[in-house]
């Protein structure tokens, strides 16, 4: 008598337990596989971002400093061998809010994102036309690259020596005319002095150098596997 009454209750209890167990195991399994997948995905995002901002990267000037002119080529860089991206992964690289490279399609819900702080260095060519006199020195800032000087051929006077920080870079007793590149160091500010005979008008001597200007930006790498 007792056994028979217990039987339906027992069956329901077993059913309930089994149901809970299945539910629990399914939930745990999903959670684990999600965690594992996103960890791999994240690893990919981190490694790609490391490669992008590293010193050896084809798009950087220095560590964490991107070259503004190289940003447009990023798409082809991702295709090439220099940066290793798993073939199966969809990837998107943004600079600020702008998408600069994309491969495959990303679904925001399942993607892993990493943000890197970078500077973007833009080298603009600065041209100055100093008033050239013996007494007047002109200074170009540190981190200036590819300095050139152009001296016009004027009958009123001529430059015969150009010195940078008291070191003679160019000299010609008959007068210098034409365009010369000056070997100045980007490590220090450089005072450029001209030694001359006669006089030259403003504009007869032109100095050009590439001055880097940096702005800060956030580089976002999104990977969806």
């Amino acid at each position, binding site marked *: 008598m007792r056994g028979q009454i*217990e039987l339906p209750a027992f069956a329901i209890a077993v059913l309930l*337990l089994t149901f809970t167990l299945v539910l629990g195991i399914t939930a745990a399994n999903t959670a684990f596989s*999600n965690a594992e997948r996103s960890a791999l995905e994240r690893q990919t995002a981190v490694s790609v971002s490391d490669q992008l901002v590293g010193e050896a990267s084809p798009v950087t000037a220095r560590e964490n400093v991107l070259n503004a002119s190289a940003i447009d080529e990023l798409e082809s860089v991702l295709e090439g061998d220099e940066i290793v991206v798993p073939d199966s992964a969809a990837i998107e690289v943004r600079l600020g809010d702008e998408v600069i490279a994309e491969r495959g399609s990303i679904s925001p819900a399942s993607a892993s994102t990493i943000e*890197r702080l970078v500077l973007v260095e833009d080298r603009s060519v600065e041209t100055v036309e100093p008033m050239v006199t013996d007494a007047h020195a002109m200074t170009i800032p540190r981190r200036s690259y590819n300095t050139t000087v152009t001296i016009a051929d004027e009958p009123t006077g001529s430059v015969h020596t150009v010195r940078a920080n008291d070191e003679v870079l160019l000299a010609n007793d008959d007068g210098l005319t034409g365009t010369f590149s000056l070997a100045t160091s980007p490590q220090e500010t450089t005072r450029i002095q001209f030694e001359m005979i006669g006089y030259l008008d403003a504009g007869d001597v032109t100095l050009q150098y590439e001055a880097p200007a940096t702005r800060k930006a956030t580089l976002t790498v999104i990977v969806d596997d």
Partner: protein
Amino acid sequence: MTRGQASVTAIEAAIGVLLVMSITFTFALGVPSGDERETQAQLDTYATDAATILENEPPRHQEQTRVTEVLVSEDAFDREKDDLEDRIDRILPPNLAFAVETEYGSIGYPIPDGVKTGEATILTPHGELTLRVWYI
């Protein structure tokens, strides 16, 4: 009589369900979530990136880099700290706050209790500078 016996099984089943559920929840809540680790990693990345950028900045007056210059002496630190604060503020995204610790004092904001921070240290010949960042 019948009612009493049936409820014992029901109680047993209920305890069983509770047991299974508790194990499930231990797994679900006990394992640190991926989001938490990602937040920590992202904060550390922010700190490291900011430190790298600072490390390569040219000095304003003397020494090799900006950071070395700041750490040369207490006077140098006092002179440069406002400028350094502005600079770090500009490098970091607006959703982050920071604190810098050096042997001469600190710059930035006080770190709130219990907040997760990312950390990076810059070594210079004159001492070290520790940068901590957190989400605000």
